[in-house]
C-alpha cells in the first residue's frame, strides 16, 4: 500500500544522476513505512472502528402513486454494544420492514428495527449477537465527546458511499455547529433539536448512518447529509445528541419530548430595532394555534428571557436548537415558568408543556378504492391550516382506480357512507363496512366541502 506522502520519501544520496535515471529511480523507490504520526493515528482509529462498521440493505414499504410499494435502499451503520445494537439514520432504516446487514467480515445477517426518531434522523437496529459476533468477541464502536471538537480536527467518514461498503474518507471538521433550515426526512421534520457537524471528509449517498470518527477512534458523529453539487460539504449528527437519543430509544422505544408550541428567532438580527426590548433572550416568532403557549397567552413578539429561572437566550441561529432541546426536556403536564419581556413589561407566564407527538401520521392503503391515506396529527393540522385533525389525508390516488379523477392528493376524507371519520382506524373500519354498489365519500379540498361516490371496479 502506498502510504507515504511524497514529501516524506527518502532520496538516494549517491552520485550524479540523469533525468531519466531520476525518474526511474523515483518510480522504483521503495515505499516508506508509516512513520507519520498523523498517518499512524488514522490507521489506528480506522482499525478500532472498522470492525464495527456495517452496510445496511433495507427493504421498506412506502406509498407512492396511490398504492403500497416496496423499495430497496442502502446505507451504513455501526455496532454500539455487545447486544448487537446498530446505530444508523432514520432515513436509512427507520421505517424498514426487512433489513439485511453486511458485517465487516462480509457476512450477511438479518437485523430488526428497534426504534427510530425522525426528529434527529436516527434509528437503532439489532442483530442477534450470535450472528453479529460469531466468534463470541463483540466488536463495537464507542462514542466520543462531540462538544470537544474544534474546527480543523481530523475526522474520518466510514461507510458505504454509493454502496461501496467499507470505505473510509479523511477530512476535518469544517464547522462544529451548523444549522440547516427546513429539513425533512421521509416527510418528517428533522433537525429542530440539534446542530450539525460540517465536515469535508467525503460523504456521498450511502454514507448515511455511518460513523464520523476522530483520530482517537471514537465516534463523534453520524454522517447524515451532504450538500448536492458541492465539494465535500457533509453534515453529521453530533455524537452527544446521538448518545442521548439512542439511550432513550433503547430505554423506552421513543424519545420523550415536550412542546409548548412556539417558534423562536434569535435576537441578533433585531438589535437596534424597536423590538429589541431585551438585551438577551429569544424572540417568539410564532405561537401555534391551540398550543400550551397560546393558552398561556404568549404572543409573537414576546421575548423569552428565562425558562424555569434559567437564562434563555439566542443571539444567533446556532443557539436555537439548544433552546428547543431545553423545551423538549421539560416534563409534560408539569407547569414551567417563562420569564417574558413584552415591550417595556416584564411578565411571568406559567405554561404547561404537552408531549410532542409525531409530526406525520401513519399511512395506509385503501386498495379497493385506489387510495393511500395518512392519519392527521396536530402538527399536520397546524402546518396545513386545517380546521381540526379529524379525517384522513389522501396522499396518493392510483391511476385508473375508482378514486381517480374524483379525489386527489391533499383532500381530507371526513365521512364514509355517512359515518364520521375521526382518524385512520375509523376510516379503515368504515371502508371495510362499506356495502352497496358505491361508497359515499364526503371530503374537504382546501376551503371546499365536496362529496362524491366511489364505485369499486369489482362489484361487491
Amino acid at each position, binding site marked *: 500500500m502506498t502510504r507515504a506522502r511524497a514529501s516524506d520519501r527518502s532520496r538516494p544520496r549517491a552520485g550524479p544522476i540523469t533525468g531519466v535515471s531520476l525518474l526511474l529511480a523515483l518510480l522504483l523507490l521503495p515505499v516508506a513505512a508509516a512513520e507519520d504520526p498523523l498517518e499512524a493515528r488514522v490507521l489506528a482509529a480506522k482499525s478500532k472502528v472498522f470492525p464495527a462498521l456495517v452496510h445496511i440493505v433495507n427493504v421498506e414499504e412506502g406509498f407512492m402513486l396511490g398504492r403500497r410499494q416496496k423499495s430497496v435502499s442502502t446505507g451504513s451503520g455501526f455496532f454500539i454494544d455487545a447486544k448487537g445494537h446498530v446505530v444508523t439514520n432514520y432515513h436509512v432504516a427507520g421505517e424498514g420492514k426487512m433489513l439485511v446487514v453486511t458485517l465487516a467480515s462480509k457476512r450477511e445477517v438479518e437485523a430488526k428495527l428497534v426504534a427510530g426518531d425522525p426528529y434527529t434522523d436516527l434509528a437503532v437496529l439489532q442483530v442477534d449477537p450470535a450472528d453479529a459476533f460469531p466468534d463470541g468477541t463483540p466488536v463495537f464502536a464507542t462514542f466520543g465527546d462531540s462538544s470537544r471538537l474544534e474546527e480543523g480536527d481530523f475526522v474520518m467518514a466510514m461507510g458505504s458511499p454509493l454502496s461501496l461498503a467499507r470505505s473510509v474518507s479523511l477530512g476535518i471538521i469544517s464547522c462544529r455547529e451548523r444549522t440547516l433550515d427546513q429539513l425533512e426526512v421521509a416527510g418528517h421534520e428533522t433537525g429542530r433539536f440539534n446542530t450539525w457537524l460540517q465536515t469535508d471528509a467525503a460523504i456521498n449517498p450511502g454514507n448515511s448512518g455511518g460513523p464520523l470518527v476522530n483520530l482517537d477512534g471514537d465516534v463523534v458523529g453520524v454522517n447524515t447529509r451532504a450538500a448536492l453539487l458541492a465539494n465535500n460539504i457533509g453534515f453529521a449528527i453530533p455524537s452527544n445528541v446521538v448518545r442521548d437519543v439512542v439511550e432513550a430509544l433503547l430505554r423506552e422505544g421513543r424519545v420523550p419530548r415536550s412542546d409548548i408550541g412556539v417558534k423562536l428567532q434569535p435576537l441578533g438580527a433585531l438589535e437596534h430595532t*424597536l423590538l429589541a426590548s431585551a438585551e438577551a433572550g429569544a424572540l417568539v416568532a410564532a405561537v401555534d394555534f391551540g398550543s400550551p403557549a397560546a393558552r398561556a397567552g404568549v404572543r*409573537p413578539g414576546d421575548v423569552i428571557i428565562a425558562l424555569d429561572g434559567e437564562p434563555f437566550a439566542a443571539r444567533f441561529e446556532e443557539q436555537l436548537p439548544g433552546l428547543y432541546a431545553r423545551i423538549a426536556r421539560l416534563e409534560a403536564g408539569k407547569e414551567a415558568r417563562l420569564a417574558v419581556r413584552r415591550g417595556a413589561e416584564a411578565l411571568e407566564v406559567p405554561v404547561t408543556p404537552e408531549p410532542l407527538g409525531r409530526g406525520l401520521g401513519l399511512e395506509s392503503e385503501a386498495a379497493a378504492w385506489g387510495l393511500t391515506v395518512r392519519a392527521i396529527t396536530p402538527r399536520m393540522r397546524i402546518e396545513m391550516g386545517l380546521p381540526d385533525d379529524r379525517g384522513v389525508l389522501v396522499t396518493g390516488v392510483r391511476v385508473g382506480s375508482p378514486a381517480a379523477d374524483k379525489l386527489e392528493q391533499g383532500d381530507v376524507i371526513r365521512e364514509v357512507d355517512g359515518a364520521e371519520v375521526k382518524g385512520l382506524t375509523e376510516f379503515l373500519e368504515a371502508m371495510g363496512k362499506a356495502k352497496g354498489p358505491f361508497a359515499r*365519500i*364526503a371530503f374537504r379540498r382546501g*376551503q371546499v366541502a*365536496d362529496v362524491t361516490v366511489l364505485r369499486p371496479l369489482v362489484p361487491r
Partner: protein
Amino acid sequence: MRGGFGGMRAFLLPLAFAAVVSADDLPVWLVRVTTERASFGSPSRQTLLAPALPVEEGLLLVVGFALEPSDDKDEALKVTALDPKGAVFPAEIVGGDEELHCTLFRLPGNKLDAVALEAAACAVGDEVVLLSRHGEVMRYAPRRGASRIDASVASPRPLLALEAEALAWQGAVVMTREGKLLGFVDNRPTVTEGTGIVLGLGAQTPVLVPASAFADVPRNLPRKDRPRGWLGVNLAPFDEDREAYFGVETPQDGALVTGVSEGSPADLAGVRLHDVIQSIGDLTLRFEKMEEWGPMLRAVQRLPLGKPLACRLLRFRQLPEGGYETAPVEVELTLEARPLDFADAPETELEDLGLKVKPATQDWRRSGRVPLDLEGVVVTRTEHASAAQIGGLAVNDLILKVDDKPVPDVDALRKAITDARAAKRTKIVFFVRRGQATLFLTVQPG
C-alpha cells in the same frame, strides 16, 4: 365616409347592388390591437384588426374574439381605434365575453354616437353587404363584399352562407342593402342554442349573428369598472356522482353548494352547505359538467344587484337510518357586488424598498387558508437585490405589522415605512405571516 371606399365598392360589388349601398352607411370603425412580448430574446408581435361598431356607454363592440385586459407584465399591449374618417385614437380593452365571442373597447375621453344594437328585418334570399377590415391597414381602410342569406333555420335568427372564404370575413359588420344594421359575421365552429345563436353549419362557415344578440353586452358584460353579481358560494357540478351521493334518482338541474362564505349574500339568504341551487330569479342553473362553469358564472354575474330574487333550492336532510330526504326550499336572495379579486386588486410599488404589494383580498385569504379577520398587505414582488429581498421578504408573505404597528392596508404600510424613515431608523422590522406561521424580518432601507 362614403367617399372613403367608393372605388373599392365598384371593384367588389355588382354595379346594381352598389347604387343601393351607397345611400346611408353605418359609422363602422376599425380597432387595432398589437401585442408584443419577448420570445427567446427577441420581440414577437401580433396584431388583431377588426371592424368595430360604436354602441351605448361610449364603447366600441367587436365581434369575433373575446379579449380581457392583460395583467401580463411582460406583454406590451397597444390598442388604437380608427374612426370612419381615418383619425386614430388611443383605446383600451374593457372586457370580453367568451360566450358571445365579442370584446368591448373604450376610447378615453371620447363620446361616440351609438348605433342601436337592433337587427333589421331580413329573409332568406336577401342580398346583404359585408363590411370588414382590409389587410393590415395603417389607416382606415375597410373593404366590402356582398352575399346572400342562404338559409334560415329558426327565424328571426338567420344563418348566412357566403361564397367568399369564411376567415376573411370574420367579425364583419353585416348590413342590408339600405345600410341598416343586421349583425356580425362569426365563423365560430361551435355554436350552441340558447346563447343568441342557433346551431352552426360547421367549421369555417360564417354565421350571421343578429345585432340584437349583443344588445345587453354593453350593460352586462362583466367589467372591471362595473360591479359583478356575487353569491359568496363555492359550487360543484351536480352530476351523476353527487346525485348518487344524496340518493337523487332523477337528474336535476342545479349546482351543489360546497362552501358558503360567512356574511355573503348566500349566507344571509339562508343557503346552506350541500344545498343545490336550481334557479335564481329567471336564471336556471345547469351545471353538470365543468365546461358549463364559465357560462353559468357569467350568467350569475349578470343578474341584477341589490334586488331580492327568488332562489329555488334542493335541500337534503340526513335520515337516522342512512340516506337522505330531499325537500325543495325557496329563499330570497339579494346579490351584492363581487368583492375585489386579488388579480384585479391594485398593486402598489414601494420603490425605495424594491417591494410591490396588494391588499389581502377575501379570495387570497381563502386560497391561502388565512383567517379572514387577519388584516395585512400581501407581497407580490421583490426586486432583485432590493432591500426587501435582502431582508428576506418573499412573494405571498402577508405583512401584518411594521415596527410593531399593524398595517391593515397599503396606506398604513406606506405610513409606517415613512415614519420609520423619518425617525432615521436603520432597520425596519416586518412581522409577516408565511404559510401557517409568522416571523420577524428586518429590512434595511437603502
